[in-house]
C-alpha cells in the first residue's frame, strides 16, 4: 500500500464523536432571532394580493421588496427569484419570511397572513410539458435546454442494421436525506453581512449575495459550519436560504437563524431528476452493435438551476463503458411546476448507468450472450475515444475490474445456477464517473485557486472546499504533509471562510481530491523549494491541461479531465409471499487510482452503495399534483441498519496521472452502479423485464402477475 493510503485519525473526529462540533442550528448568540419561510401552497398561480396583519414590535416581514439589487439566484440561467413577486411556480416556493424573537409569535403571524392566488393551469409531468397544453414556464418553450450530439456516422450506419433492440426506462426522484436539514445563520454589523451555514459551496452563496445586494465582495463573508451531510443537496440550494437569512439580518440588524423543518426540507429543496430514457441499439448480421440512438428526458421542475449541467452528464455518460462507433444522443430537460431538481451525488450519472446497463443486460438476454462477456467486447481502452470523441489518454483496466468482480462474487456459477432456482437472481453493472467539472468548466467557469501559507514551521491550507463528511479536513492535510515531507501535525486546515480562502471551486463532481488536491500538491512542491524562507504565501491557479480540449457548443472533446471506474454485482432472492427483495450480497470493484486514506475511502464506498441501494429499491418519492407524497422520514424511506446487505469491496491499482499521488475522484462513483446490478438480479429472479427504479415489492407483484 502507498504510504498516503494508510489511514489516520480524522481531524474532525474528536469534535464529532464527543458531540462538541457546533452545527448551524446549535449556534445561539445574544440577540439572535428566528426566521420562518412562508411558501406557496399551490403549484402555479398569480399572486393577487398578500394581506399582512399588523406586526407586533420587533417582528418583520422580509420579501422581494427588501432586495436592494436583483431578485435572482444566479446559477446557469437567471430564472429563479429569491422571493416570489407576482407569481409562484411550485409548491414550496418562498414568498416571504416572518422574522422575530419568539417562535410562537412568528407562527401566529404566519397564521394570519392571507394570500389570494389566481390559479394558472400547472404543468405537472414530462408528458404535460411535451404536450404543451398550458402556458410555458420558461421563455417561449416547454424545456430549459435541448441537446443533441453525434459520434461517427450515425445515419449511415443505421442503414446497415439487421435488427434493433430497444428499451425505455423510468427513474424516480431521490431525496438526499442528509440528517441535518438546510440551516443558515446570518449576522450584519452595519457594513458586512456574514452568512454561516450548512453548505457545500461557500462561493455560490458569495456570488448570490453579490447579485442580490449589489455589494462589493469586501462587504460579504460566507463561512461553512460543520455540515450534517450534503450529497449534492447543499450544492446550489443553500444560496436561497443563505440570501434569505442575510436579507433578514440586514433588515433587522440582528443575528438571524433560519433552519428548515424536515418536511419543509423534503418538500422544497432540490431532488434528483426523474427521467425517461429510451435506448435503441442497431445490430448487424454478426450480432455486433453498430450504432446507438439514445434519448433522455428529465423533469427539471420550475426553475432551471443546474439541470442543464446534470443533463450534460447524463447524456455524456449514457454511452457507458463501451466503444460504439456511431451514436446519436439527444436530451431535454422539461420545465414543470414540480419541485426544482438539482445536484445529487452522481449528478445525472445514476440515471444514465441504470439505463445503459439495463439495456446491455436485456441485449445479453436477447442475444443469449453472457452479460459480462457481451460488455467486455465493447469495453473502452486507452487510446479509444469517448462518446464525445475525447481520447482516453490513460490506461483503462475494465478487464481487470470485470475479472475481479466475477471472481469475488462467483458470478458465473450463480448466474447459471439461478436459471433453474426460482426467485433467485444475480446481476452486474460496469460503470464510470467522469471526475471534475464537465468539459473545460474547471478552466473557463471555476478557475479554481488554492492558497498555502507558511509561518515558521507551521503550514496552513486555505481552500473553499468544504468538509461534508467526506474527509476533506483530513485528506488535504495528508496531501500537503506528504508533499512537504513534514509531520501532519504542522499542517492546519479549518472550515472555509471566504474572508481568507480563495475560491477553489465548489465541493462537487468528485473534484476535490482530484483537482483541488492536485493544486495543493503543486503548491506544496513550490513551497518545498522555498522551505528555508520563514513566512510566505503561495497561491496556485488551475491550468487546463494542454492535451485536453472541449467545445461546449457541439459537445466535442474531453468531457472530463479524468475518470474513475467500477463494477458491481448484486445477488437477490425474492420473498415468495411478500415479493420483498432480500439482497444477499453486493460485490464492488473500483479503480479510484491511489486511495488517499483507506478508511475514508471505505466509508465513501459503503455509504455510496447503501444510498444507491435506497435509490434502487426503497426510496419512493412521487409528485402528485405538484406535491411530493412522501415528505417526512416516516414516509420517505431510507435504509436502516437492518436493511443493509453484506458488502464486499476491492480496489484495483491503476494510479491516475491527473490527481495527487495518483488519486482519482471517488465520492459519487459507488452510488452509480448499484441500481442496474440490482434490477438485473431482480429480472433474473422473476423472469420479466424491470423498466423502472425504485423497484418496490408492489412492482414485483405486478410483474409476477402479468
Amino acid at each position: 500500500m502507498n504510504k498516503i493510503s494508510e489511514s489516520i485519525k480524522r481531524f474532525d473526529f474528536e469534535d464529532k464523536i464527543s458531540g462538541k462540533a457546533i452545527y448551524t442550528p446549535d449556534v445561539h448568540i445574544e440577540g439572535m432571532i428566528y426566521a420562518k419561510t412562508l411558501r406557496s401552497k399551490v403549484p402555479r398561480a398569480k399572486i393577487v394580493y398578500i394581506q399582512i396583519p399588523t406586526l407586533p414590535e420587533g417582528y418583520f416581514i422580509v420579501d422581494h421588496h427588501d432586495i436592494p439589487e436583483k431578485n435572482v439566484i444566479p446559477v446557469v440561467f437567471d430564472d429563479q427569484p429569491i422571493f416570489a413577486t407576482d407569481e409562484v411556480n411550485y409548491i414550496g416556493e418562498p414568498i416571504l419570511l416572518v422574522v422575530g424573537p419568539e417562535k410562537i409569535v412568528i407562527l401566529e403571524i404566519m397564521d394570519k397572513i392571507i394570500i389570494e392566488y389566481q390559479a394558472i393551469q400547472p404543468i405537472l409531468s414530462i408528458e404535460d410539458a411535451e404536450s404543451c397544453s398550458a402556458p410555458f414556464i420558461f421563455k417561449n418553450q416547454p424545456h430549459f435546454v435541448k441537446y443533441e450530439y453525434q459520434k461517427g456516422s450515425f445515419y449511415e450506419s443505421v442503414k446497415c442494421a439487421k435488427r434493433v433492440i430497444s428499451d425505455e426506462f423510468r427513474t424516480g426522484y431521490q431525496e438526499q436525506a442528509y440528517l441535518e436539514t438546510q440551516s443558515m445563520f446570518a449576522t450584519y454589523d452595519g457594513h458586512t453581512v456574514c452568512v454561516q451555514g450548512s453548505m457545500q459551496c461557500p462561493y455560490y452563496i458569495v456570488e448570490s449575495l453579490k447579485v442580490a445586494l449589489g455589494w462589493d465582495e469586501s462587504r460579504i463573508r460566507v463561512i461553512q459550519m460543520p455540515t450534517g451531510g450534503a450529497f449534492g443537496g447543499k450544492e446550489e440550494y443553500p444560496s436561497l436560504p443563505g440570501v434569505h437569512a442575510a436579507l433578514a439580518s440586514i433588515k433587522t440588524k440582528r443575528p438571524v437563524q433560519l433552519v428548515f423543518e424536515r418536511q419543509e426540507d423534503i418538500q422544497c429543496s432540490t431532488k434528483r431528476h426523474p427521467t425517461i430514457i429510451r435506448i435503441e441499439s442497431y445490430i448487424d448480421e454478426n450480432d455486433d452493435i453498430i450504432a446507438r440512438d439514445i434519448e433522455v428526458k428529465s423533469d427539471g421542475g420550475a426553475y432551471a438551476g443546474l439541470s442543464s449541467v446534470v443533463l450534460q452528464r447524463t447524456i455524456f455518460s449514457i454511452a457507458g463503458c463501451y466503444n460504439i462507433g456511431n451514436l446519436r444522443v439527444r436530451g431535454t430537460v422539461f420545465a414543470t411546476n414540480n419541485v426544482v431538481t438539482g445536484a445529487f451525488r452522481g449528478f445525472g450519472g445514476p440515471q444514465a448507468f441504470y439505463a445503459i446497463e439495463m439495456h446491455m443486460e436485456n441485449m445479453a438476454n436477447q442475444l443469449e450472450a453472457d452479460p459480462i462477456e457481451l460488455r467486455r467486447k465493447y469495453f473502452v481502452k486507452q487510446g479509444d475515444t469517448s462518446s464525445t470523441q475525447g481520447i482516453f489518454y490513460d490506461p483503462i483496466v475494465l478487464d481487470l475490474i470485470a475479472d475481479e468482480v466475477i471472481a469475488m462474487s462467483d458470478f458465473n456459477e450463480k448466474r447459471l445456477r439461478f436459471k433453474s432456482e426460482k426467485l433467485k437472481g444475480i446481476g452486474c453493472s460496469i460503470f464510470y464517473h467522469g471526475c471534475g467539472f464537465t468539459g473545460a468548466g474547471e478552466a473557463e467557469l471555476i478557475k479554481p485557486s488554492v492558497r498555502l501559507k507558511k509561518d515558521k514551521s507551521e503550514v496552513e491550507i486555505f481552500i473553499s472546499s468544504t468538509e461534508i463528511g467526506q474527509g476533506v479536513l483530513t485528506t488535504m492535510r495528508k496531501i500537503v504533509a506528504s508533499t512537504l515531507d513534514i509531520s501532519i501535525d504542522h499542517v492546519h486546515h479549518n472550515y472555509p471562510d471566504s474572508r481568507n480562502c480563495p475560491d477553489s471551486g465548489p465541493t462537487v463532481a468528485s473534484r476535490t481530491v482530484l483537482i483541488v488536491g492536485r493544486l495543493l500538491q503543486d503548491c506544496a512542491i513550490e513551497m518545498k523549494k522555498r522551505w528555508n524562507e520563514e513566512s510566505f504565501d503561495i497561491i496556485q491557479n488551475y491550468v487546463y491541461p494542454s492535451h485536453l480540449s472541449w467545445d461546449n457548443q457541439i459537445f466535442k472533446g474531453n468531457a472530463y479531465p479524468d475518470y474513475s471506474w467500477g463494477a458491481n454485482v448484486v445477488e437477490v432472492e425474492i420473498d415468495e409471499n411478500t415479493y420483498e427483495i432480500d439482497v444477499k450480497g453486493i460485490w464492488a470493484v473500483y479503480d479510484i487510482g491511489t486511495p488517499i486514506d483507506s478508511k475514508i475511502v471505505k466509508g465513501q464506498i459503503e455509504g455510496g452503495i447503501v444510498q444507491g441501494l435506497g435509490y434502487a429499491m426503497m426510496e419512493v418519492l412521487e409528485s402528485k399534483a405538484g406535491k411530493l407524497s412522501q415528505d417526512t422520514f416516516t414516509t420517505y424511506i431510507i435504509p436502516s441498519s437492518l436493511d443493509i446487505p453484506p458488502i464486499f469491496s476491492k480496489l484495483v491499482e491503476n494510479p491516475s496521472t491527473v490527481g495527487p499521488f495518483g488519486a482519482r475522484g471517488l465520492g459519487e462513483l459507488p452510488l452509480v452502479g448499484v441500481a442496474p446490478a440490482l434490477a438485473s438480479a431482480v429480472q433474473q429472479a422473476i423472469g420479466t423485464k424491470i423498466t423502472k427504479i425504485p423497484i418496490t415489492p408492489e412492482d414485483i407483484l405486478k410483474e409476477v402477475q402479468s
Partner: protein
Amino acid sequence: MVKSFQPTTLSEALDIRMNYDVMVFCGGSDIMIKYRSWSGTPAQFPKDVMYIGHLKELKSLDVNPSEITIGAAVSFSQFLNDERIPTMFKKPIEQIGSVAIRNIGTFAGNICHASPAGDTLPMLYALNAKVVLMSKRFRRVVAIEDFISGPGVTCLKNDEILTYIIIPNTIFSHSFYRKVGSRKANAISKVSVFAVADVVEYRLADVRIAVGSCGPIVIRLKDAEARIIGSNISESDQTVNSLLRMFDDKIVPIDDVRSTKVYRSKVALNLIETFLAKELRQ
C-alpha cells in the same frame, strides 16, 4: 395554552377524567408526533392533557397461568424483557418501531390510537384480548374487537381510562407473525398477519387468524375459522382455499403512500396460505 394534569394515583386520574375534558397521554410516541409544532415550540395539544404514564398502578405486568394483565403504562420494552411472557406473544412487539420507540410506547396507546396499522392489534384480536375501561363509578371489560370500531374510533367514554389489557395466556402449538413494512426497522406496516393454531394429532383443535393494515380495522373471521377447526391439517387444501376466498371477500385495503390495494390483499392471502398450508404441516 392548554392545561395539564399529573395525578399521583389512578383514583385521582379517574376524578380528573370525570371532571375535565382531557386527552389521556400515556407513552406519547403517537401524540407527540401528531401535535408537533415548529421545532423549539411546545406540542400544540387541542385540549387539556392528563399524563398517566407515571402511575404505579398502571405499570404492573401480571402473568398467571390463565391471563396476562398489562397495565396501561407498561412499555413494550418492559413486556419484551419479562421472561414470563411466552415468546410467541413477543414476536409482533419486538418489531414495533425501534428500541427507543419501544422504550416509551405502550399497548394502551397503540390500542386507543386505533390505527388500521396498529402493530399490537392483530395479535390482540387473535388472542381474544380484552381491555379494562375504568371510570370513577364503573369498571367494564370489553373485547378488543368491540372496543375499536373504526380508524381512530373507539368506544372509550369521556370519563373512562383504558387501564389494563388482558390477554388469555393460552398455549398454542403453532404461531405465526409477519409484518411487511417499507423497511426492516421503524416502519409502519403495509400488511401484517398474526395467526395461532393448536394442532392435536393432525387435527386442527383451534385456529385464529388476524390481518392488519388491510381494512379500517383488523380483520378476523371467526366463522371462517370455525369451518376449518376439526379438519385434518394434511388433507385440508380445499378448506384452506375456501377460507382464503372468505378472507378475499373481507379484505378491503386502500392505496396510500405506502402501498397498494392489490399488493396488500395478495400478500395477506399469501401469508395466510403459508401459515395454513405450510407452517401447520411442519
